[in-house]
């Protein structure tokens, strides 16, 4: 393996390591061009657009996977590849996260094929998805606060437009507005935080920040800056304290976009948070008063508890999923909260990454199922889901898989990833984090099983008929379900890769 990897490193120029991002960006541009070539709008085939964007994402997925297997940017082949004056770095972690973004983008593209049938503007939709995915990929590669911010905005701006994409739907507009306002606020907070960090350290490169935090005179400024950075990340990952946009945005947005945001975008937020905090503010070199681990511990516990309790009180399935996605952000935060000097940090971080990977499948699938239900025109509350299984058993099996997997029940991928997460937290000595997580998981079973109960056990309403069986949505949902299932037996490579690449950060 290492031989071919070495060959790869020597035959391709260094910048080729960013190929996944380049492919996604090119796909977006190509989509715009395709959209431009056709004058008459009917000429733009929805299938072509969806196909191109899915193919582009899958190609990026394949390339990222190939790089990951070949060891690009990993210690075995000479370590991380840093480009453009260290502003971008391609290493195992960025490639791992790229896999999540691209596979989610592919599923969302395929699913959108049906969702967009009634829309007149499609080209921009797909290309915005691609651009957002590009931004996320760059987020995972960002090695300087400048690239962090730019890529974060590159991921956010298309998302704003996508959330508000249904121009005549009041819910979508409202969601877009709220998402945008909170997003703009948090990006302002974030960039102010960056400016404070720059003020204290004189650099935006993560490595240089790390080397100069020891002797900065402005600990207070730096501390406030770091706190503001946390704020920015918490927005992107939909965790406390910038979480409150999530229910609105997810509920109002087109459901495939909710899927995209709650899985890929969240993962991207974590990718960038992991790198920024571990590289720029390494544990053990922090001056007193800069203990961000403590902040994340509080945030993790509050986030998972709040998300779960709020989810338990919802009547609207999409909203319930939105809150549960906040809860899952809390679990993933354990990856940052259970770190300690000399602890099994790579295990913790890797487990969190693996959880995000599994989450990418199960959560995307769940939201896409909701997209399908919206397309059926059934309604959004738990009652509206009554008896769906009598009409669409396969889709409901898939949804059941997602729900139980999200709850962390064993026969699905979510169980193993949660187990790995909590186990590594205990291993690191933070048993109370794991305990909070476990209690919350148990609680979550309550509201997840409500969906299952409604679909399977409750009697269908009079005259419940599902007129269509959307091909794209079905494909994507089944794909996600198979992925969620397969991640149980195939969890080994995921967690091992995750922990290996995580180890490179310490």
């Amino acid at each position, binding site marked *: 393996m290492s031989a071919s990897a070495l060959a790869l490193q020597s035959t391709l120029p260094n910048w080729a390591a960013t190929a996944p991002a380049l492919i996604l960006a090119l796909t977006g541009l190509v989509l715009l061009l395709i959209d431009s070539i056709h004058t008459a709008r009917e000429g733009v085939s929805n299938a072509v657009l969806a196909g191109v964007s899915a193919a582009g994402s899958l190609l990026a997925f394949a390339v990222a996977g190939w790089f990951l297997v070949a060891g690009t940017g990993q210690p075995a082949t000479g370590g991380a590849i840093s480009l453009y004056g260290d502003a971008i770095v391609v290493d195992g972690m960025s490639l791992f996260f790229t896999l999540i973004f691209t596979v989610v983008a592919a599923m969302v593209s395929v699913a959108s094929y049906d969702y967009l049938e009634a829309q007149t503007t499609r080209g921009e939709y797909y290309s915005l998805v691609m651009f957002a995915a590009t931004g996320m990929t760059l987020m995972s590669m960002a090695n300087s606060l400048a690239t962090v911010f730019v890529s974060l905005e590159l991921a956010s701006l298309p998302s704003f437009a996508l959330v508000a994409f249904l121009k005549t739907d009041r819910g979508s507009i409202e969601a877009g507005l709220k998402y945008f306002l909170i997003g703009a606020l948090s990006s302002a907070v974030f960039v102010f935080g960056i400016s404070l960090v720059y003020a204290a350290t004189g650099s935006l490169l993560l490595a240089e920040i790390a080397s100069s935090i020891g002797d900065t005179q402005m600990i207070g400024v730096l501390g406030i800056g770091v706190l503001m950075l946390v704020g920015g990340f918490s927005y992107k990952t939909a965790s406390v304290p910038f979480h409150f946009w999530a229910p609105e945005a997810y509920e109002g947005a087109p459901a495939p976009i909710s899927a995209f945001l709650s899985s890929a975008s969240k993962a991207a937020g974590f990718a960038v948070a992991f790198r920024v905090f571990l590289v720029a503010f390494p544990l053990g070199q922090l001056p007193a008063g800069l203990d961000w681990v403590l902040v994340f511990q509080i945030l993790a516990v509050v986030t998972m508890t709040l998300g779960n309790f709020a989810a338990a009180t919802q009547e609207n399935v999409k909203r319930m999923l939105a809150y549960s996605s906040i809860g899952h952000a809390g679990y993933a935060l354990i990856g940052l909260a259970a770190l300690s000097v000399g602890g099994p940090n790579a295990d913790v971080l890797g487990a969190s990454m693996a959880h995000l990977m599994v989450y990418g499948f199960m959560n995307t699938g769940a939201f896409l199922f909701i997209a399908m239900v919206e397309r059926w025109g059934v309604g959004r509350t738990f009652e509206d889901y009554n008896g769906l299984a009598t009409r669409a058993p396969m889709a409901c099996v898939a949804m*059941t898989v997602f729900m*139980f997997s999200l709850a962390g*029940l*064993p*026969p699905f991928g979510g169980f193993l990833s949660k187990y*790995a997460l909590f186990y590594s937290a*205990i291993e690191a000595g933070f048993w109370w984090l794991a305990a909070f997580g476990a209690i919350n998981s148990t609680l979550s079973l309550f509201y997840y*099983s409500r969906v299952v*109960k409604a679909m399977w*056990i409750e009697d269908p309403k009079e005259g419940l008929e599902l007129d269509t069986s959307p091909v794209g949505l079905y494909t994507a949902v089944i794909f996600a379900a198979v992925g969620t299932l397969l991640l149980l037996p195939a969890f080994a490579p995921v967690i091992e890769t995750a922990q290996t690449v995580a180890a490179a950060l310490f």
Partner: protein
Amino acid sequence: MIIEALIAVTFVSALVVFVAPRQHAGELAAVLSLLPVVGSLYMWSQFDATGNALLGGSIAFETQFTWLTLGGLDLNWYVGVDGISLPLVVLTTILTTLAIVSAWTPITSRQSQFYGLMLFMEANLLGVFTALDFFVWFIFWEAVLVPMYFLIGVWGGPRRKYAAIKFFVYTNIASLVMFIGFIALVFGLGDSVSSLGLPEISQALRAGELGGYGALDAATLKLVAFVAMFLGFAVKVPVAPLHTWLPDAHVEAPTPVSVMLAGVLLKMGTYALLRFNFTMMPDVAQALVVPIAVIAVVSVIYGAILALAQQDLKRIVAYSSVSSMGYVILGLVAYTTYGVGGATFQMVAHGLISGLMFMAVGVIYNTTHTRMVGDMSGMADRMPVTSGIFVAGAFGYMGLPLMAGFAAEFFIFQGSFQSTVHDAMPLFTAAAMFGIVIVAGYLLFAMQRTLFGPFRFDGDYEVTEAAFHDVAPLAVLLVLVIALGVAPDIFFEMIQQAVNPILETGGGV
């Protein structure tokens, strides 16, 4: 690889049935479910293990390969059978087939989903009884709950939603408690184990390699873990006072599901108790012998008394299951060859007999649409074959000689009388034997009122003999019950071989 093949075939069958047209799903499922039956019988014929799978000795059909490594612990795909698990595997496959056949009449909607779930559950049950790695085991263990939840919730009686949720919540919380207990043990063992393989862990535990973890010292940790796991399994068994989900689940579940629930799912609890608590930590078990024995005896007596007070035939059988499971606990805690072996034997025997009883009740219910004792009498006039088998099954339940129940209870009582783990064991045994009297009482009472006497039926349904495919499973089960009663050595020999290592190193007898 035969175990993998068995499980895989069952999974695939489940999928096939799930997408099959519903008119033919039942027949298809029955035919497909014969494959695992054949497989398990083949395994039985080729069975050559002599030891206990957890404590060394040869393990039959063992396969193991690495799945993944987490925090220095290997999680392996590790399966194999020994004398304890093989009878349960056979029981599972046979009972599933019979339950599927018995479902042809009562299940009239969404058949393909029903049979698909039944087969899915069977696959997971096979996994539970064959897994030798904790993780694999736990995944199968939890996976059983999912189909059961649906089976009760979708096809159950009027209060099915309540029953399904109650079942699901009870057993899931129990699993969590148990899981935490076990993981605490693993953390206590620290570096002395390198995988979650059950043999490795049990041997390390029995070798006293448990260390403390956090604020807990080794002894406390062990005690806490034992109690946590005992509670977790006890819900599944169930023992009083953790049994309250069982009557609801049984009453609401359709007959074939009740068969599986009583016949196999309850055995998961006792099987896990035997494997985990009593094999891994015999010292704690023996230290706690009094409370455990008390729980066992209370289960026996309390279950029996509750059964006495019921009007619903199904409830009667359900409570009597609680009672029967009490015997199993008593046998386990006795720590003698006959005690533990008898308990294991009782698992199989009770699986068959309770399956038979539920099916018989179900057949009657299919015809009469009521299960209330007071609603009918003299059924034997109109349904002679069914009634006959019902009576025979009840005798098996009561422990009539030459029936499996007799052999099992005899072994258990013999074992617990011999037991030296505590001076009071004979006393407990005597108290438990009192339960037999009550069982005989309530079964005879119920039969007398429903089956015999002048025919009377308050419902509007035509009461006739049941169809052949309804009665056939009953007959097969009866044959099996009698066969085990006449020749318990079919299983008991291999059970004993597997049980003895537990006692040797544990220092019971």
